[in-house]
């Protein structure tokens, strides 16, 4: 709350600095703006940047770090015998302190200790807040004063401001790299902790998946085996079903749209197909669980087949329909990119349209289509909501599409929703699965993007 008010104050100060800097430039020039090296606005922006940017950085870093620092300082004050306790216990103690500050009843019986720690906590937080105000405001003022001093007739304010703008733009584009780095580091780091407990070979080649670790050693049914093979086969099975639907339907739709449909039909049909890509996956999941799965079950009963109520088939079919627009839009792009001369050459030899498409256009477009299919496969592997809602949790090692299977994404969700201790193998297993998922989709994407790019260059 206090930080919010400070943020508003910094913004107001920055606006003031802009006006002040511009005014200063006017007055220095003595009314003859032409004498200034840059426009008055540039001097304004210059002092705005100097006022706001360092202060905002400080504000941001402070809000990120102050909680941790205060926690440490509160704990540092504990009696020596308590400091030796395990970290988890101290963490618990801190939680009790924070709860008592918020008026929630605490579970700790040692109210005197909690009370004294709470008082210390409030005192430290108050001081930290005050210090933050003083530092931020003085940084603002210093920036403003610096700018005021530097505004002279020959000062290259425009150059400075523009360089800072470009730095800001570079910062924006670096975020893409930072994100990838963040993904890799976070997933890798937790996975390494997981492989410390469970050997990586057990994880990658184990045939049994039951992630319930026992709390007591004599507990039944909590073997805690982390063999991920059933998850991989389940993912493959569902993705294969999805591709069996999406590939023929998507490819034939794109051929029809690119080669046969007249302009008016194309203008209607193409956006209509793309609606499929815009429907949220949770809607597909609901539809699969509520309509498709019971329907398949009914059909199975009619012909005497036992279909599980959460069969791989239902999830795969619906996922296939979801992926159709991805396959069709990429194929459509690559098919229209095939030069007309090739088609005309084929017509000239007397081939019919479908023969031309099958024998000339598709082979020419094949690399692009393959790239599109790879992208679609990576989407199918990473798809979560449909399988969470329509495929089961049972880690069956089977190739029968009528049975329930589970996937990598389903297990990540079930392992991480609800359970929150960060050092159990169960939680860390989710990150190991995430690592596998990330690596596989990354490889598929890199290959696909490379193939599509090469293909584009070929006909440009």
């Amino acid at each position, binding site marked *: 709350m206090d930080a919010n008010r400070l943020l508003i104050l910094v913004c107001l100060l920055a606006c003031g600095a802009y006006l002040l800097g511009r005014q200063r430039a006017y007055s220095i020039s003595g009314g003859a703006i032409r004498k200034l090296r840059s426009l008055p606005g540039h001097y304004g922006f210059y002092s705005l940047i100097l006022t706001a940017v360092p202060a905002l950085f400080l504000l941001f870093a402070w809000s*990120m770090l102050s909680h941790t620092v205060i926690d440490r300082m509160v704990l540092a004050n504990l009696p020596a015998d308590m400091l030796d306790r395990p970290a988890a216990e101290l963490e618990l103690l801190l939680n009790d302190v924070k709860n008592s500050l918020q008026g929630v009843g605490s579970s700790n019986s040692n109210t005197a200790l909690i009370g004294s720690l709470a008082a210390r906590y409030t005192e430290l937080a108050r001081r930290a807040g005050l210090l933050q105000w003083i530092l931020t405001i003085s940084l603002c003022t210093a920036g403003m004063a610096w700018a005021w001093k530097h505004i002279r007739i020959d000062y290259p304010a425009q150059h400075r401001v523009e360089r800072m*703008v*470009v730095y800001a*733009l*570079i*910062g*924006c*584009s*670096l*975020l*893409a*790299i930072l*994100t*990838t780095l*963040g*993904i890799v580091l*976070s*997933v890798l*780091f937790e996975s390494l902790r997981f492989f410390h407990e469970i050997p990586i070979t057990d994880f990658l080649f184990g045939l049994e998946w039951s992630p319930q670790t026992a709390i007591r050693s004599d507990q039944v049914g909590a073997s805690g085996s982390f063999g991920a093979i059933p998850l991989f086969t389940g993912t493959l099975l569902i993705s294969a079903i999805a591709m069996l639907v999406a590939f*023929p*339907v*998507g490819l*034939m*739709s794109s051929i*029809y*749209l690119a080669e*046969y449909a007249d302009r008016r039909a194309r203008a209607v049909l193409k956006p209509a*197909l793309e609606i499929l890509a*815009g*429907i*949220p996956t*949770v*809607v*597909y*999941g609901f*539809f699969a669980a*509520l*309509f498709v799965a019971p329907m398949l079950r009914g059909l199975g009963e009619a012909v005497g087949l036992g279909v599980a109520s959460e069969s791989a088939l239902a999830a795969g079919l619906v996922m296939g*329909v979801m992926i159709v*627009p991805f396959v069709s839009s990429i194929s459509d792009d690559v098919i229209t990119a095939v030069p007309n001369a090739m088609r005309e050459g084929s017509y000239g030899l007397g081939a019919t*349209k*479908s*023969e031309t498409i099958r024998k000339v256009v598709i082979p020419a477009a094949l690399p692009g289509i393959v790239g599109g299919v790879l*992208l679609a496969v*990576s989407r199918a592997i*990473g798809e*979560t*909501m449909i399988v969470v*809602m329509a495929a089961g949790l049972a880690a069956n090692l089977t190739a029968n599409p009528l049975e329930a299977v589970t996937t990598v994404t389903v297990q*990540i*969700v079930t392992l*991480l*929703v609800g359970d929150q201790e960060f050092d159990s193998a169960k939680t860390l297993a*989710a990150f190991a699965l*995430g690592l596998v*998922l990330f690596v596989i989709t990354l490889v598929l*994407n*890199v290959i*696909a*993007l490379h193939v599509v790019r090469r293909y584009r260059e070929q006909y440009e």
Partner: protein
Amino acid sequence: MNSRNNGNTAGQSTAERMQRKLRRRYAAERRFKLYGLVSILLALMFMLFLFIGIFGKGYTAFQQTQIRLTVDLASVEFPASVEDIDGFYAVDYAGLIKNALYALFPEASSRRDRRALYQLISPGAVYVLRDRIMASPEMIGKAADVWLPANDDVDMFVKGNFNTGETSTGRLDDQQAAWIRVLRENGRLEKHFNTTFFTASDSREPELAGIRGALVGSFFTLLVTLLLSFPIGVGAAIYLEEFAPRNRWTDLIEVNVNNLAAVPSIVFGLLGLAVFINFFGVPRSAPVAGGFVLTLMTLPTIIISSRAVIKAVPPSIREAALGVGASKVQMVFHHVVPQALPGMLTGTIIGMGQALGETAPLLMIGMVAFIVDIPGSILDPATVLPVQIFLWADSPERAFMERTAAAIMVLLAFLVVMNATAVYLRKRYEKKW
């Protein structure tokens, strides 16, 4: 003779063979075209089936069965002023409702019957009655007619097989079904527009559950996403198109952006959990955490579409600006960006549409909690509309199923509006250079 004859028949048969082959080829041509048409129609039919299925399930949720009870407000003491909230909260509203019911059906005298009778009314009706009385205190002291929500089983019964003559529905017994019939004949049971669905937050009781909390949560989450992803995405696009030198470094950024667009959304959830929540201590379940994760997810979409529109601005505009002495930054911000802005907005709206429908990464960062309060800021625990759909889809009550479908209809309506805006913007401001 023989050979010529042979030649003749062979000639005829060659022509015939050619004809036959040509017919076959034309048939194959027609078949091929048909396959294409059929696959498009298959996909569209599936979509139609999906929409019809969900609308057919969901439209009933916009109505809610209510029961009109004559509550004797003279029989209990009410505090003198509405300011006395504790006093109002202490009144025995359940007793009022029970007495009104017993007066309607005096024949239900046994304890079992009376309990069955009270089950017709929603357990939340006491709060509805309390709020109604507090809103209009002039009712106090008289016998007043109040519409109260019926229990979800009653609601399902009335919406479902009321007219089929079937009596037993599993969760209601014959006696309760008979009472419902009597109530309906007396005009005391009607279906009204379900305002609760739009004004309430999540609840364990389907008849009291609504999407307001999830909508507000979605709004806050998207607000954070928009405020972060639009400037950052546009900034990155401007740098990559206008300033970046062509070298390995910018190639790396480009490959990164393209790859991030295809990383599974759940991996972003893992990133959010490990980095934002565990490392930086962003509050769990809060829209701000969701907004951060969705920002990273929508950035590639915005960057890629913004780059395309910047690229489409003709170089002559840039050269003209530079020619009259503008600096490069001035050229970009005064001339290129204004020309490209509508296109950038279109891309941003499409990205926001994706973010609105995104579920999986938000499950990871704890936005699945059961939250009854409507969030008041970006730091309060909240859930979002797609996650609410996911939660309700898991509930065993049949009444939640129609609410799930109805929530999907609301979500789809928002998406349609957003995408229609994007299409309109594109059509309205599209420039052919």
